[in-house]
């Protein structure tokens, strides 16, 4: 993979992160109720965060 493509993928990931951890997407999960016993907002934040890190690992190590 060329450095150019790698850069573009990283920028895309950063934008994806900004989208995931911001209004309005964040508001969708800012509701009551639980997921596996954990409040939905908490579960969403940690799961989205883990997924973003996994994607970054994928791009970085390719």
């Amino acid at each position, binding site marked *: 993979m060329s450095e150019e493509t790698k850069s573009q993928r*990283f920028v895309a990931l950063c934008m994806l*992160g900004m989208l995931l951890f911001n209004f309005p997407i964040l508001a969708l999960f800012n509701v009551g109720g*639980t997921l596996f*016993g954990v409040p939905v*907002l908490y579960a969403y934040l940690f799961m989205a*965060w883990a997924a973003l*890190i996994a994607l970054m690992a994928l791009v970085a*190590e390719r």
Partner: protein
Amino acid sequence: MLQGPVIILTSFAYLGLLFAIAFYADKRADAGRPVIANAYVYSLSLAVYATAWTFYGSVGRAASDGVGFLPIYIGPTLMIALWWLVMRKILRISKQNRITSLADFVASRYGKSALIGGLVTVIAVIGILPYISLQLKAISSSYSILVQYPQITMPAAAAGTSIASDTAFWIALILAAFTIAFGTRHLDAAEHHQGMVAAIAFESLVKLLAFLAVGVFVTFGLYHGFGDLFARAAAEPKLAAMLTPLEGVAGGYASWVWLTILSMMAIMFLPRQFQVTVIENLDERHLNKAIWLFPLYMLAINVFVLPIAFGGLLHFPDGAVDADTFVLTLPMAEKQEALALLVFIGGLSAATGMVIVETIALSTMVCNDLVMPVLLRLRALRLNERADLTGLLLGIRRGAIVLILLLGYLYFKLAGEAYALVSIGLISFAAVAQFAPVVLGGIFWKGATRRGAAAGLVAGFAVWFYTLLLPALARSGWLPAGILEHGPWGIGLLRPLELFGLAGLDQITHAMIWSMLANIGAYVGVSLLASPGAEEARQASVFVDVFRQNPDTRGARFWRGTASVPDLYNMLARFLGAAGADASFRDHAAIKGRQWPRDALEADAELVHHVEVQLAGAIGAASARIMIASVVKEEALSIEEVREILDEASQVVVYSHRLEQKSRELEAATAELRQANERLTELDRLKDDFVSTITHELRTPLTSIRAFTQILLENPQVELEQRRKFLGIITKETERLTRLINQVLDLSKIESGKAEWHESAVDMREVVADTVTGMSQVFEEREIKVDTSVPERLKPVKADVDRMIQVMLNLLSNAAKFCEPGRGRIEIAVSEHGGGLRIDVRDNGPGIDPDDQKVIFDKFRQVGDTLTAKPHGSGLGLHISRQIVEHFGGRMWVESAPGQGACFSFTLPT
């Protein structure tokens, strides 16, 4: 068990262990076998980001704001996604210019300006003081709580106690001594502190393990997992509100966004992060792993923050226990002495790690960018004539470390006690965020100038001071509180917390909006108004175009003047010592293919540039510039000349890029042509082979036909019996000839793509049955036993039925040919295999050599020695069979061991 002496002894034992690690790593580094030269240690050292703030403060924040602590860690994750773009550039620039600190980086970019370097240093030192005081507060309060064990009492405000009996004061002094021992034992030209990095990486492991241990204890020891804990919290009306909406609790989305942006800046521009990420980096490639390992670390250390916060709130419902101490007080309340001690050590790790790296980074800045430029300018000191300045440099740094820690203690006494840990830390984050425009602008925008940078820094810092630091001091009673309520001199518009009437925001958001506006506005505005000087223009090009330069001529091409080699050598020796200067001159001579000091060196532009860069590694770019100017007669280049050189250089770059591209295209075309030529030659050779083989194959039967017809023609009296035999041979050979010609025609049709294929759904059961019946005569003649195992129902394959019969006939007749007459045995097996059918034909003949197996499917390949043994066929059958199978999307191969028969198999997709 947990008395004062035990705790103090354990703490010192732990600090001793850190020192041992650092010592070992330094020894290994000196021996040229560094322990820290791997991406994992690098990633762990970046985790110095997690301080006492993370360790104690996150839980405190979570206990009041729910998820409000998270942007501090999510922000850096987002920024790190951009590191490949931004940090790689900063790393490259810093390595090429031997940058020693953040202040040095900024000063170097804006024309090696001592003014800018000093400005950055002052902002950094003042801005970081709250942060250092946070660590002192965390250590001292965790100690005072732990020492009360088994009671849990919050430490009383220390305002009344004298300094001598104040724990925080002694902690500040011990940390100063420890940092001095760590970071300023000797002067390294590259500012690497490998021992420190090893110790920091170890501390990162300790604090992570300690925090995870408490998390597991609270979640699974005190409660039955996450679900149970959150369910119980939801049952408490007071806590239930925190489990849901974000807006009411964490200051709303605006605050969330600004905290994210703030921490994005912090991860880049905190002096200690710049130190471990950039200055201590040994290999650019370590970034690849750190990009995901470090965010993973932050995720791991945050997983248990909410459970501990809710556990604490459920456990101490009356609010008598400060939420910032839950991590420690929960194990204490449950009488877990060992765990409590581990937590204390973990907190100590988090705090000491931060203090060590931060003060080393700041002391380097104070020394190189604040004190040295001033001292060097004071001619009365005659520093230029001193033989060895390394002692002076180390002395300044040690003094700076003590001073910074004492100032941190002072801030703690003045303002620290009124705030929670996280709020103290955020003030520092907002201060270092002021570096973002000048650094990021500096590496991507050539138009940024020294005056613009100075204006931006001053404006941003002033607003920060007014809107964040001033209120902190006022709240602690050191300034009249009326300033906050009515504004200075009663001017309402200037109220520090609602500047120009901007109300309804939390303090950090408010300060960030105004300071960034002032900072970026002044930076861009003044840069556009003032044109850059020669030195600035050239440094701008060195920084912005770092990936495009030819490393041999960087910087050197901008210099014109006269110098002498002994002058340069002596000056370098003063700062690096004689050994350092020797090594540096040897390196430079080696690049030019000479041996120093045997061969004389010329005091040319390259040597001067080399010396300046080496010097910058020790005392910073701005000081190095002053020193060089003192021993070298320079002709100042005008801005026009610099521009000309830059234009010329960029044209050359563009031109050479184009040339490179052209030659790459040419190479590609040549390679293609060569390939095509090779293929043609190969085809030509194959054709020749084919023609010669085919003629040979045709001649064999023809020869025998001719011989026998001649005998019959010339000897009319041949006996009838004999005649019959001869005619039989002739017929057979003719048949062979016909078959051969048919196969050749068939092959040429297949290969040229003109063969006719009649695709239909073929039932392989029928094909097998038909061919076996067709061959039954042959099998009987040779007494061969045939076993077929075909499933009752088979999916039909899409193929040409005649071609399939052709393939099967070929395989069966081959098998029959090689079976020993009398004891022959052929097994035919059809099975469903993956998405298709697999057909095996196994014989018990002599088998096929492994070497022959590779070529048996080639044209005219007959196994065995064709010279001695009579060939058994044309050598085209298997080749054609394979072509047919492959045409229908299948595969054909052979498995065999000599002496154990052969198994020909092929697959067909259904």
